[in-house]
């Protein structure tokens, strides 16, 4: 009894494996090539059928000759389109990130590994992105670059798994596509140009010192200490002598760098949607504003905290976090490591206890 059950289980397992293998082969085949008709190709094929039908009915040998030529053209079309996308490797060259609403230019380095045949009239499609790159000609054994232009309207992290090579070369009758596994992702930062409805002149009281946030532009007070260089810091602040001694770049920090920190707290307790996105853009705009004013700024978004810093590098760090945050109605209020009364809360619905609040509202 037990033996037969074991046998049944093993048989079931084998069946699953076989089925899974078939599915895998089907997927591989699908990933390998896809062929579809263009309008002209459908018409041509229908014409070939019609000529074949007429040839068989009448026994007219010249119609057989025409049919042969039409089938020859279809064969050559299939073979040449295969050659166009065969032995081609694509390397995707992505920018570090792109701001929502701005042009995303993705470059592709395409190498044609064929010995003799060039690849002609190949389009490159990247995942779901609508923009296509076009390769008019890649000589055999050579490498060339092309690019696609897209515009992504929403911030976020867009995974890009496959690049599709698509061609209807040589006659435009059939479109043949081939997927290449080129994993990658594109980070889309939120927009930073949204006008922020700051309710108080202070824009958030300055922590510790209590001074106004609107300090004199470019005046950073006395030299205070050195710290390690972070990507995006202003290279003019590098202390070269210390960097040479420590063999790692270090930066000068000034008194007012820490004193005027703007703490931006993003409230994630909201349903995902347009208001939430507006809140993210408001937080990003506040950060950009702080950078433009030359002041230090920090971000608290859910459990993630970006420590105070300044300059373009700090803004990138903040935007990277903002690109990835996700909203959920039950999320806790942000818990900054400083007094909440010195922070600006950016929220959809608002919350008490913060020094200042930017409430975008449901109809923002």
């Amino acid at each position, binding site marked *: 009894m037990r033996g037969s059950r074991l046998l049944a289980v093993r048989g079931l397992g084998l069946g*699953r494996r076989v089925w*899974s293998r078939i599915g*895998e082969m089907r997927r591989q085949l699908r990933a390998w090539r896809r062929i579809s008709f263009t309008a*002209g190709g459908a018409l041509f094929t229908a014409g070939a059928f019609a*000529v074949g039908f007429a*040839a*068989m*009915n*009448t*026994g*007219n*040998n*010249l*119609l*057989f*000759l*025409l*049919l*042969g*030529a039409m*089938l*020859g*053209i279809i*064969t*050559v079309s299939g*073979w*040449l389109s295969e050659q166009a996308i*065969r*032995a081609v*490797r694509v390397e995707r060259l992505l920018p570090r990130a792109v701001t929502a609403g701005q042009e995303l230019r993705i470059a592709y380095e395409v190498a044609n*590994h064929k010995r003799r045949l*060039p690849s*002609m*009239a190949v*389009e490159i499609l990247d*995942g779901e992105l609508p923009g*296509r790159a*076009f390769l*008019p*000609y890649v000589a055999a054994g050579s490498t060339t670059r092309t690019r696609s232009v897209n515009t992504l309207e929403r911030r976020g992290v*867009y*995974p*890009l*798994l*496959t690049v599709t090579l698509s061609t*209807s*070369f*040589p*006659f*435009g009758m059939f479109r043949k596509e081939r997927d290449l*596994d080129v*994993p990658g*992702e594109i980070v889309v930062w939120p927009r930073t140009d949204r006008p922020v409805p700051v309710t108080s002149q202070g824009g958030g009281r300055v922590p510790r010192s209590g001074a106004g946030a609107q300090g004199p532009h470019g005046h950073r007070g006395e030299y205070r200490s050195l710290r390690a260089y972070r990507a995006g810091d202003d290279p003019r602040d590098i202390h070269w002598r210390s960097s040479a001694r420590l063999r790692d770049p270090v930066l000068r920090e000034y008194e007012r760098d820490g004193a005027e920190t703007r703490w931006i707290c993003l409230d994630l307790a909201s349903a995902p949607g347009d208001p939430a996105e507006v809140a993210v853009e408001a937080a990003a705009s506040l950060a950009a504003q702080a950078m433009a004013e030359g002041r230090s700024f920090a971000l608290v978004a859910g459990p993630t905290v970006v420590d105070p810093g300044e300059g373009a590098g700090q803004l990138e760090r903040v935007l990277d976090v903002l690109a990835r945050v996700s909203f959920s109605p039950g999320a806790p209020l942000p818990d900054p490591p400083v007094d909440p009364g010195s922070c600006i809360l950016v929220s959809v619905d608002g919350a008490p206890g913060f020094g200042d609040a930017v409430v975008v509202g449901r109809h923002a």
Partner: protein
Amino acid sequence: MNLRVLHRRLAVLMAMAGLLAFAGGAGVEPVSALLAAAALVLALLWQPGRELSARIERVWLPLVILLVGRALLHVFVIRDDVVVPVVDLILLLLAAESLRTLDAPNDFRLYALSFALLLAATAYRPGVLFLVAFVAFVGLATMGLMVGHLRRAAERHGVREIPLGRPLVWTTTGLTGVILLVAAAVFVVFPRVSSGWAGRGETLATSIAGFSDQVSLGGHGSTILGNPQIVLRVEFPGGLPQGHQGLHWRGRSYDRFDGARWTRSRGMPPSGGPTRWYRDRWRAPRLEQRIYGAPLDVRVLFALHPVLDVDPQNGIQPLFDNAGDFLYWGSVAPAYTAWSPGAIPPAEELRAVEAGYAPPGRYFLQLPELDPRIPALADSLTAGLPTRYDRVMAVQGHLRSFAYTRELPASARETSLEHFLFQRRAGHCEYFSTAMVVLLRAAGIEARNVNGFLGGEWNDFGGYLAVTQNQAHSWVEAWFPDYGWVTFDPTPAGAGGGGGSEAWFWPGRIFFDGLQHRWNKWVLDYNLETQGGLFERWSGLLGSPRVEQVVERTSGAGSRSFRGPILFAALLLAGFLWARRHRRLVPREARIYLRLREACERGGVTVSPGLTPLALVSRVRNQRAAAAGAAARVVDVYLRARYGRQSLDEAELRAMARALKEARRSLGAKA
């Protein structure tokens, strides 16, 4: 030259090839063809601007309407051939489309109209010119379609130029070759389930005199004079027989002579002679003749006498009439194989025969009212000769002393047989054959007049005997009991039928006619039988040795039968190697990573298309922790190679594969 101009020129050249193909099949009305050709040549050299193009279109429109009206008139009112008006319309549209501005998106219209002309040409039985135009069309279409596609793709993506040049020409040449090969393969292999295609225009057959139900004495020679049109092409699979100039290609026989005309009697009983006589008594080696006839206005099959067997090749239905003449049913130009003895029986055998069955004398001994000198002449020629054969030869010998001339008699009185026999003593073959039949009948020997062709010109290039209309000839058949009808030719040797072919049979003509013959034989008349023969020959090459060969070869007798499977296995191996070569293009580490993703999916981990490698590891850690370590090792190596651009050594790749195996095992444990 930029892509736009090149594309337009290629499309126009395609149209020209289509026009040439149609002209090769059906000919065209000179006016419309010339106008269309002129417009196409103009379009090749010049393209109008937008404004001018718009103005020209205003001219085309009423013309097109006019031609559509004309075509409709032909279909519904006149009810005659609609092809010519439709072709005129196509030509006009072609001219109009080719003279449009370069920006006009009319690619498909130009292609379709050119193809329509090519298609229309197939309704006829075009000559070799169609083949030339077809090859040109395929070449131009290959290049034109390719350039057109590149042009449109470049315009869509804002690319100004695509580097084309010599590689394009080579590529196109190669592709054209491939397309023509495929066309040839499809043509040869595609099963012919329907047989016989009477192309349009085929019934406009070559008119030929001398083979209708009645022939006037003297009329035949005047009609055939100087007509070099080929009526028969004859191949000899067993080799060209000796003395091919003396071969008599028999057509029709005539039994009734009224003094001026030969006719065929109605209601004649079977009188061709039993086939077994010819099969058994005519012992000369059999001569196989593959005969390709021109479409004539008479349904006569020509062959050497007597025909022992016949094998039709293109759907015609051969039949013997009561006189033993060889006719056929069918509307195509006849193609058939006939077997006949290579020579008449030896003289000794014919001399030995005297008594036996003879066909009805009222048909074959019939004579009109004759000048008494004629029977007297017959008596004087045959008196004292012991055998029928000797008597026949005596009459033939007498007539051969006459002169041959194609000059017609000056007056009606001079056309008579008496005038030929006793005054003029010169004439063409009809006079000789008529005189001999009359003399033989007067001497009591059954005889009849036969029309056909004599000899032919051997075409070395095509390997066939070309028989032309000016080789039409008349001769005699005399009856010999137990042997049947035996051919005798009283026309003086060397005169032949028409002759004079040297004047036109210059080498170019021979070459062209050889081409035409092959075209007819292998393309226009290719049929199920030819196809079967080819397949039989090929199957012999690939295996299935014939029985006698198996018997003869005791050692290694079956070696040929392995060729097919070996060829098949070689093809499979080539395919396998090709597939492996293709797989190598994906780096090994990427393949291992992709297998990990598949294994995760099978193991129940949710793997969405956009899942990044590290996110995959994180997900495995959450959902199938046991496999997380191995998955992380795979992903770590993959990321180092893919993004860190590290080159992996064999040990690392093996470690990666081991990690994949481990991950699979862990993932599969629960499943």
